[in-house]
């Protein structure tokens, strides 16, 4: 990446800061993934990368391309939007799968202690999803 030398200093500094911040947050998330003990704890760590980490990198990208191409480049917002919307899907599925397996094997925290499942909280008539 030679092109960063052509940017004004403030933009170069800002880009560098954002990229490094994003990368650092992702790194922290990765370390957390290794350090935490149980699966339920581990689930939380990588979300750092998926939210703030990617946010930093995307902001850096917006700054860099907007300045270097001298026009507002904002399609990173779309990326951010889709990442934000889809990451929870994976996380929820993983967690629930683990919970089910643990329950099936009798290793799960007791149902009374555990936070209620989403299906427990939201009754069918309140979902707004079409009913047959």
């Amino acid at each position, binding site marked *: 990446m030679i092109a960063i030398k052509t940017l004004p200093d403030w933009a170069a500094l800002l880009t560098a800061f954002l990229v490094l911040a994003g990368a650092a947050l992702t790194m922290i998330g990765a370390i957390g993934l290794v350090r935490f003990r149980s699966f339920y704890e581990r689930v939380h760590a990588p979300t750092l990368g998926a939210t703030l980490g990617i946010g930093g990198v995307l902001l850096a990208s917006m700054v860099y391309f907007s300045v270097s191409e001298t026009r507002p480049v904002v399609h990173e917002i779309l990326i951010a939007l*889709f990442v934000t*919307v*889809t990451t*929870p*899907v994976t996380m*929820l*599925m993983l967690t*629930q*799968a683990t919970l*089910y*397996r643990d*329950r*099936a094997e009798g290793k799960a925290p007791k149902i009374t202690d555990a936070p209620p*499942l*989403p*299906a*427990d909280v*939201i009754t*069918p008539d309140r*979902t707004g*999803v*079409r*009913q*047959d």
Partner: protein
Amino acid sequence: MPDAKLPLTLMLFLPFASSAATALMPAGARNLVAWLAGLTALAVFGLGLWAAPEIYAGTVLRAQYAWLPEYGLNFSIRLDGFAWAFAMIVSGIGALVVLYARYYMSPDDSAPRFFAFLLGFMGAMLGVVISGNLIQLVFFWELTSLFSFLLIAYWHHKDAARDGARMALTVTAAGGLSLFAGMLIIGHIVGSYELDVVLSSGRTIVDHAMYPAALALVAFGALTKSAQFPFHFWLPRAMTAPTPVSAYLHSATMVKAGVFLLARMWPVMAASDYWFWVFTPVGAATLLIGAFLAMFQQDLKGLLAYSTISHLGLIVLLLGLGSPLAAVAAIFHMINHATFKASLFMAAGIIDHEAGTRDIRQLGGLYRAMPITATLAMAAAAAMAGVPLLNGFLSKEMFFAETIESHVDSAFDHTLPYLATLAGMFSVAYSLRLIDQVFFGPEATDLPRKPHDPAIWMLAPAALLALMCLLVGVLPTWTISGFLSAAVFGVLGALTPEYSLAVWHGLTPALLMSVVALGGGTLTYLGLKDYLSGAVEGPPLLRRLSGKRLFERAIAMLSWRWARVLEELLGTNRLQSQLRALVVIMVLAGCWPLLAGAGFSPAAALASVGVWLGNTWLSPRWLTSSAPMVGMFDPALLLVWAVGVACAVGAAWQAKYHRLVALILMGGSGLATSITFVWYSAPDLALTQLLVEIVTVVLILLGLRWMPRRDELIPDDQLTSARLRRLRDLFIAIAAGCGVAALAFAVLTSEQTATIGDEMIRRAHPEGGGHNVVNVILVDFRGFDTLGEITVLGAVAITVFALLRRFRPARDSFAAPDQKRFQTEYDSTRYAPGKDPINAHYMLVQGVIIRLLFPVICAMAAFLFMRGHDLPGGGFIGGLTFAIAFILQYIAGGARWVEDRLVVLPVRWIGAGILLAAATGLGALLFGRPFLTTAFRYVELPLFGKTPMASALSFDLGVFALVFGATVLMLIAIAHQSIRVYRTMEKASVREKAAARSRGDV
């Protein structure tokens, strides 16, 4: 010489044309089809008469059409005297048989079918005799086998007819294959398949080193066709055919094809001791055994069948002797046998038709009831026995004379006259028995029907043939000599010897032999009469020697036991061993050039591998690390690769007991590949790889559900043999993997000069109108390849669908997985059944998000597709993305939910895709350009601005549709599996409940 092309062509194709026309006629049109068939036979006969003057003058008529001239193959018709004589017999007796069959076949039988087969057979037989090309001859030869099969099995509701037909087809068609091989060798020796060239090749074939092979193959073909010992057994079994068929095929035509061929090849193949030792003993054995067995048959047609075998043996014996005079006798006997045997078969058919049985023991004293039939049969039978003043006597006399001559000096040659006389005695005995026990003696009282002479037109064909026997026998020089000399000249040409057809040759040894045969035969019959009238079925000595049983055993051995053994040895139902074989062969094929280069010595092979490794890995270029090598060693990429390799190794490690883990790790290594593509600026490949990776992993994941459970507690898995097997598989896998990696590395590091890639990059925009070279190559430069590939993809998808449609999982994977059971239990305590699963489902949040994303992904697919020509994307990528949108819906809502709302018809997408792509390619033809030429230009679209519009876009749309359809089809195939299995489980439980209830009631 008149232009023979049209008449000869008509001669060959008229029967086939009539056969086709007959087959299309209504079943009731008996007279019409009979007239058509008869007139066709007469027309061919008339064409033969038209050619007669030319043939008598010794001319050979030819007609030739170019077929594959560059391979020396032409469609040629060649009519010389011999072929002409046979064509006259085939068409003449054919016409008589048609007339006879018209009255023989009952109104219940389908006349069009019968006459269509008969005409087809006539055409095939004419094809055999007048073919001017060896390959063409074999073709018609096999066609006769086929039509004979159809004719023998005409009454296909009878088991015996079907079995007999199958046996006849197996034996004669196997012979045909052998003959084909023999003809190929002869064609190779002579350098041409044209009969003219072959016949004028002199001693070339006999002197060639491959002569014995050619002789053996041709002999097998001819001997099976002419029912020679030990292949004779099919002919008696073929007697289940309607009698007109026997009269035609098993006297005059089909079985004569073998001896016809031997006579045809006689001038160029007979001048060798091999020829004598193959055909003379076989002919002698057949002559004797056939005649002996014929005496003991109780079925009228069985007797005639064995007698036919015997007479064919006589002809083969004569041809085997190798002297021109014997060949003359053989040809003469072919003609005579055709006349008297056809007549006898017709008589036998009349008796069967009128009396209702063919069992000689039941028949008797029929002379009074049917005097005309009896007279005709007597004349023909006397000819068969070789009684003087009938045609059979003349050729038999020649035969006796020839056996006395010395040919190949040996004990066998010297005993031939005695064998011939013995066979003559048997022949007289069975002929006598036929006449005496059927027409004379005490009148039969227990016949199924009251016998009487049949309609005049049913008698006429037999009468005409019997009359010919008599005329030829009394006045040979006036009747047959011209016909015979034409036929003989056709075979022997300049070799034609002097022969005399006189009835009286003076007191010769041959005459003595005839007298002994007649007297001895009469005595034999009288001696055996009481034995034969008894209820014994079959001959006394050879009853055990049943060729039929041997054949059946051989067939059982071949088609059942050996097939089983082979299947056990080579076949498997297990996917593992099939894949193992595939990989091993791939490794061996990869090693082949290395091993071949090293002269197959393992040490040298290793050395060569070492040298090769040294050259590629340790070359100076590598050490001096030129520019591209630096890029390769970027630490970040190396890290990605390390992860990818770890994933791949882990996948292999876990594949046995933890399939899910293995699958996830496989996805990980796929991601590493994808990142590598991004790294080296191949976004198109990266995108494709990513999507393929996603789809593959998801589809396999869905399939994993149906795999049987594996765990480490299965005892068989811990056996030493199992461990060894896994070790071997590991070794194979490592060899294959390392081999592929080494090959890839060798290709990547080899010196690259100007490649086609540069050329394509240069031309992509000016000629293809696109900036995305990959896409331009796919849809334009290599459009034809792509068309082929998508066709394969579609076929694969349909195959997967077909396989999964009939797939029944193992019992132990029927039950729902624990998690699913758990969830259902949990839900059933809270929610009413039959609701949208998403409400009562742990997938609530995810499900809603996935459904909301559906239009977004579809838009993305369209976007990727549209921009494909200039930027990464295109039909393949777009189609996969579109498919992923659907896969997600299936995952979120289940197959039933999705299919209640969305109509996806993947097979139509596949079809439409192929059609669109092909139609786009064909569109270029309209503009006078070659297939798949692309046109392109920029168009101003209202909303999008300047848009590139290439006709390739429409092609790419086809790719899009096909990829989408194929992927979704596989998805649906897997998804429906679960629906079906639960349905069968429900049914089973309902059944069980019902059974339990009924038990309770009782």
